[in-house]
């Protein structure tokens, strides 16, 4: 078995720079707590990992299946408030632990995702985007109106922490993130022989009528996309609440919804790794740069402004996203056998066709 793994590594990871970078990146994430003990670094990277789940779940729903959802914060906030309410009002006198509240939050978000389909799937294009954008704001209005139950502007605080130490929280979030990204990557992999969803999502995005003509029940797959997107987004929301300890209305704001989109479009839409790159550049990097002297550095003060300007520039000059742009520089597809090659090769590594 090890020989087979080694062979895979030798022949399908080493020659492809993108895969090599991805593996190095994940290994580095796993050994960071062994190097540094500073709780702030661990905290920021933990939060980034949660945001990665949030961003990538948007990519799955909107990038792959083409249902451009502008209210992704709805699932995030629903899950966060589910966890908050479970903490505030004990069930049968028992305070549920995080291992119970997180799945419940994610499942409630899945249910909300399916429920959104009823009005949302009657619409298309701009109407769908604007409708979904309004949903989290509606929930926000409800939360603010019933202050007695939800705590209004102050939100629900004193939510149990995820685990006792920063390192434990770090590893929980990292493992959940890795698993979630792997599952979403497999679900959207159009070349997979066993899972058809990836191919079908692509078909729905490119031409829904053609997909329907092929006998695909497109409505069912769109509902599936909403359910999967809602589930993973809810997972992120529940983890986020357990990390910060409070569920507040800002999770439902328009800025929150757009953060997911900004991360994904920055990294590259319709590519699972785009969300990862977006979060690690726009969130983690800006957090680290903006640290120093109590967040009063230039980057720390104008973080959102910098983010907005960077997004405008990216949209103008690299419309397909930074991640995809870099990947195109690093990898070259063989024109004959469609195998991916490193940028340094002149001939394809399998069929030795010229790459120029």
């Amino acid at each position, binding site marked *: 078995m090890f020989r087979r793994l080694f062979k895979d590594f030798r022949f399908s990871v080493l020659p492809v720079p993108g895969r090599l970078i991805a593996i190095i990146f994940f290994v580095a994430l796993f050994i960071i707590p062994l190097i540094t003990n500073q709780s702030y670094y661990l905290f920021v990277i933990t939060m980034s990992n949660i945001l990665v789940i949030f961003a990538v779940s948007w990519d799955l729903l*909107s990038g792959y299946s083409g249902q*451009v959802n*502008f209210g992704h914060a709805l699932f995030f906030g629903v899950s966060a408030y589910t966890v908050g309410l479970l903490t505030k009002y004990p069930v049968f006198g028992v305070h549920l632990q995080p291992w119970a509240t997180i799945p419940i939050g994610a499942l409630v978000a899945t249910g909300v995702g399916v429920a959104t389909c009823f*009005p949302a799937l*009657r*619409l*298309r*294009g*701009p*109407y769908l*985007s*604007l*409708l979904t*954008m*309004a*949903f989290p*704001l*509606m929930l*926000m*209005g*409800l939360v*603010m*109106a019933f202050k007695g139950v939800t705590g209004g502007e102050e939100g629900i605080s004193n939510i149990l922490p995820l685990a006792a130490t920063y390192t434990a929280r770090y590893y929980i979030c990292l493992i959940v993130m890795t698993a979630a990204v792997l599952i979403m990557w497999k679900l959207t992999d159009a070349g997979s022989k066993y899972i058809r969803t990836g191919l079908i999502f692509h078909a729905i995005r490119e031409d829904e009528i053609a997909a329907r003509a092929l006998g695909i029940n497109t409505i069912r797959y769109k509902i599936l996309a909403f359910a999967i997107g809602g589930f993973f987004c809810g997972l992120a929301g529940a983890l986020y609440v357990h990390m910060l300890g409070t569920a507040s209305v800002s999770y439902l704001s*328009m*800025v929150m919804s*757009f953060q997911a*989109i*900004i991360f994904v*479009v920055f990294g590259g*839409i319709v590519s699972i790794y785009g969300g990862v790159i977006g979060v690690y550049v726009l969130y983690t990097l800006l957090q680290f740069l903006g640290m120093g002297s109590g967040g009063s550095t230039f980057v720390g*003060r*104008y973080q*959102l*402004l910098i*983010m*907005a*300007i960077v*997004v*405008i520039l990216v*949209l*103008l000059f690299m*419309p397909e996203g930074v991640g995809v742009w870099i990947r195109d520089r690093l990898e070259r597809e063989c024109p004959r056998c469609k195998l991916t090659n490193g940028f340094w090769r002149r001939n394809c590594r399998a069929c030795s066709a010229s790459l120029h």
Partner: protein
Amino acid sequence: MLELIIIYTLVNGGIYALLAIGFSLIFGNARVINLAHTGFFMLAAYGLWYFMRRLGLDPGWAILITVPTVTLLGILAYRFLINPIREHLAAVLLMTISLAIAFQQLMKAIFSSYYWAIPALIPGFRNILGISVTNQMLLTLGIVAVVVIIVWLILAKTKLGIALRATAQDAEVANLMGISVPRTLTITMGIATALAAIAAVAVAPIWIISPDMWSPPLVMVMVIVIIGGLGSIKGAIIGAFIVALVENSVKVLLPEYNYLAVVCAILAMVIVLIVRPGGLFGVLFEEEKL
């Protein structure tokens, strides 16, 4: 009670109508959903406040400087930022919301996040139907009525208006008829932004000026144009008054639950969409039908 609802509905509905007409115009002609629309509205309010309160200019001069400047800014943003990516829906939405966030953060960086206010352009109040209405509200109502009539006259009677409507119906055929489509779209954006700036002039003395003032009206404008149908001017005006009626009824009848106003407005939108997916007066293009 009823009089209060009527007065507030007229004033707020008028302002929403001004904003929604601009939003609807630019969507109908260029197929661009301009989420930065209320961002320009906020910029104009800040400009007015800056010229009047910081530089001490006359209100007339302040308006004369602010409205053209913001309009020019809108045209420049359209030419250099929105036009190159006009074909991609998600990119346009992201670009315009980034613009709005950038405006908000810029205003926050320059003027900090304090709340500012402008004195009424005409002080005093009078009694109408037994309730006191400030003169500023009546002025706002007057501005709204005049501007809506002017826009309607431009669209219905002038050559430019015919060109605008032709482009909205079918840009390719309009191009074949000798209408310069890019120029028409730029003019549309100019008119839309000017309408947002005029709305800001009308409303700045009533509302509070803050960096966050762009997002609540944006939500309302979105709800309005979806109810009325994207791209329809008549729909925008009628939708504006429907939404203002719902919002102000909730605010007057249930003062302790005034956050429910947004919820009710959005519920109204969902109901309209389920009954008529294109909005009340909207036109669904063939490729947008399900």
